[in-house]
């Protein structure tokens, strides 16, 4: 899961337009074409409050190597029209070096964008499209952007064909419109630096949510129960097709209380199980999470974080479910919390979570966020990982079988229903080793110790964090902040700052010795996170011994963390 951390050479494109203008289709095709041309890239989506028919923006970043987050600025903003486009102004920073491609027929560039002083490139998208029978402005836009990105017409054509597989008139006119768009850019005489291309062969395009689903399946999950919720639904939708093909099942439950309890039932039955949700759904699952802790049921719960509190901002990202994930259970309920540190990492992080849940007979939470889950990237085919978490299963006819036996590791053999001679009752009440309810202080302490011990003894060495770089200062971060932090650090290093990066993948159980080792010799750290209240920083204070000189950069969502803002903090707080 290590990645190189050189500064990223990239080009960023934003396509905006009102509902039905087809900006998402154009964006998808552009990313696909770029991938076929041997580039890497990333596309995320933004839209207005309307369910359908409102303004939308496709946000792309293309690069020579794998790219996991947006940069500070956009090279090109293309508007199919300007209706309500100003609402995206804070999401699409442009500057004097940017191009704003707009259709003069759609009116002037709105103040929110023109103020940046970018070079305005008028392209009569509509008029050009009209000249092609059945042509649509978004395909003209695709051609224009493809040309700016240095992608050949043939590659663009293949991307269009891949989408419009039915062929026919629609395909024909799209191809023609695209070509007209390319021509228009050539005519306008604008160009951008070329990105070095690599080998497309063997690469994938995948969203974070799909990667999470695949990580689950690779990890062995064969039962999923869930209730739809933004921005986790795509995990479920992908799994609903994938699972039956590998002998698994997905059940749509009546609510989150049912979905997590169904997953618990299936896992009790011996089948690795998962549910996925977002903050409001996770809230409804904490009682059953506690049950899984007490009854020692392996279980994976994915929480794709969105803006909070309450229903909050369902379509935007934030890291503020950290508290509930770490501490949201009543009683002393040790469990595992894992967070992917990039879109691509959704796969291995989820697979690892399955491995830990199965091995430790514990619920494991996985915390991607909306910015990961709903973004699509281009990447090399993810390698297989040696993570085949297997439960310790009780042998048939085990004499005097004790489900919750006090073993040195804290892990006790778990009988699979159907097995002779090991019948037992799993219980969420405190219990004896046999599982019989007990309110005796001795049993309580023994089981509390056991449940804590099994997490303490596990081997997290390989994946607990990503640690990069050298120096006596460090940035400590997690989740989707990692990519912009990495980029900010690369810039800072280029400027001579020697700094480390520590991005925690394992949030719970805390690994204070490991962090201390990773920070050995570090005199000052900068904590970076996307919350309003500084949840991660508080957690670090609670569970780790931090250097006296600890600085914090935290801010709320929904705007993505930019490398530039982090870079300035690094310069200010760490380079001093």
């Amino acid at each position, binding site marked *: 899961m290590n990645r190189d951390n050189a500064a990223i050479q990239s080009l960023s494109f934003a396509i905006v337009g009102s509902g039905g203008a087809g900006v998402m289709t154009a964006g998808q095709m552009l990313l696909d074409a770029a991938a076929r041309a041997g580039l890497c890239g990333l596309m995320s989506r933004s839209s207005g409050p309307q369910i359908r028919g409102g303004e939308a923006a496709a946000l792309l970043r293309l690069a020579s190597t794998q790219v996991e987050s947006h940069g500070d600025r956009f090279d090109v903003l293309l508007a199919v029209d300007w209706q309500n486009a100003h609402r995206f102004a804070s999401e699409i920073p442009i500057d004097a070096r940017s191009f704003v491609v707009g259709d003069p027929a759609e009116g002037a560039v709105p103040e929110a964008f023109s103020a940046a002083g970018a070079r305005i490139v008028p392209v009569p998208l509509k008029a050009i499209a009209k000249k092609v029978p059945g042509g649509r402005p978004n395909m003209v836009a695709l051609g224009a952007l493809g040309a700016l990105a240095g992608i050949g017409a043939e590659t663009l054509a293949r991307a269009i064909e891949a989408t419009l597989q039915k062929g026919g008139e629609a395909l024909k006119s799209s191809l023609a419109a695209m070509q007209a768009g390319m021509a228009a850019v050539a005519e306008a005489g604008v160009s951008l630096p070329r990105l070095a291309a690599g080998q497309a062969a063997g*690469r994938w395009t995948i969203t974070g949510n799909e990667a999470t689903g*695949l990580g689950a399946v690779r990890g062995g999950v064969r*039962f999923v129960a869930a209730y739809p919720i933004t921005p986790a639904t795509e995990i479920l939708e992908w799994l609903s097709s994938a699972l039956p*093909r590998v002998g698994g099942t997905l059940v749509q439950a009546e609510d989150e209380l049912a979905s997590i309890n169904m997953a618990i039932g*299936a896992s009790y*039955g011996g*089948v690795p199980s998962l549910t996925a949700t977002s903050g409001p759904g996770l809230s409804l699952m904490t009682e059953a999470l506690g049950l899984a802790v007490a009854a020692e049921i392996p279980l994976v719960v994915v929480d794709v974080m969105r803006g909070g509190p309450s229903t909050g901002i369902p379509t935007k990202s934030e890291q503020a479910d950290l508290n509930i994930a770490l501490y949201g259970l009543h009683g002393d309920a040790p469990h595992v919390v894992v967070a992917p540190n990039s879109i691509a990492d959704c796969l291995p992080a989820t697979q690892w979570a399955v491995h830990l849940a199965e091995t430790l007979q514990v619920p494991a939470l996985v915390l991607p966020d909306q910015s990961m889950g709903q973004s699509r990237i281009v990447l090399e085919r993810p390698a297989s990982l040696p993570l085949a978490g297997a439960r310790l299963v009780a042998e048939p006819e085990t004499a005097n079988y004790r489900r919750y036996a006090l073993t040195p590791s804290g892990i006790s053999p778990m009988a699979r229903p159907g097995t002779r001679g090991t*019948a037992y*009752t799993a219980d969420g009440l405190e219990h004896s080793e046999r599982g019989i309810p007990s309110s005796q202080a001795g049993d309580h302490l023994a089981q509390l110790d056991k449940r804590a011990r099994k997490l303490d003894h596990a081997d997290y060495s390989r994946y607990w964090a990503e640690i990069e770089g050298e120096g006596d200062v460090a940035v400590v971060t997690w989740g989707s902040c990692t990519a912009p932090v990495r980029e900010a650090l690369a810039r800072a290093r280029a400027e001579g700052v020697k700094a480390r990066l520590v991005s925690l993948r394992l949030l719970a159980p805390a690994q204070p010795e490991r962090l201390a080792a990773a920070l050995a010799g570090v005199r000052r750290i900068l904590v970076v996170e996307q919350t309003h209240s500084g949840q991660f920083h508080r957690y670090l204070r609670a569970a780790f011994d931090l250097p006296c000189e600890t600085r914090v950069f935290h801010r709320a969502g929904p705007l993505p963390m930019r490398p530039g803002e982090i870079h300035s903090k690094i310069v200010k707080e760490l380079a001093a």
Partner: protein
Amino acid sequence: MNIATAPQPFSANDYKSDYKPVWCPGCGDYSVLLAFTKAMAQLQRPPEEIAVISGIGCSSRIPAYTNCYGFHGVHGRALPVGTGLKVARPELTVIVAGGDGDGFSIGGNHFLHACRRNIDITYIVMDNRVYGMTKGQPSPTTEPDWDSALAPGGTGLRPFHPLVIALASGANFVARGFSGDPNGCADLIVQAVRHPGFSFVEILSPCVTFRPDQREWGKMVHAAPVNPTDDAARAARRIMTDDGFNTGVLYAGNRAPFRPQTAPAAGLDAIEAEFAL
């Protein structure tokens, strides 16, 4: 007389564990436990192929008193646990059991949707029209004028009709028993388990501690005067107008049980190939 039948390796006692129930002396749930073990002996399913799933309440303590696999979960969520287990392990016999509070108050939504989903499980509710475990509060099936500390003078609310709701939401088998008749209950449980789809058995099971008045139930119950029907609307109408003490199988339907989706088997590689450019 049983000369012609095959030897029966399992007796009722083989389904009973030796943990002493925490129930009050005289609690109706003892007889439900007895009925359960008798029913399983009639079915001759090996104990380890049976899973008994419950929530929280006096009645929900039943799993550990059997020799089957058991799951004593949280309050109100027994049906989802049983559903997940049955879907993941269809070869097991899954029995979900619990109380009226567990099933109809906090668990009401799962009851609705389990009936609708019609998975092949059996749901036994020990209805004592009270929250026993928490020491005597009204449950959804409690009579409107039953006095208690939490609802002095009574709730004034119409009791919940579990059997009618079961029918309205699609349960495939609906029966009512009385714990005072463990053989009768055993018979209902046998039929319920054998019937495909979601089978619901309400067992009137007195709480002698908080509802001593229910000792009268023995005099009030009687066999339903008509044969079971497969017309849910008719069955519902009958139940809505009967005296609440009819016992027996009241409905046996023909809905096909839930089948999880299937798809042609494919290796993981085939699935992953779809991400390739």
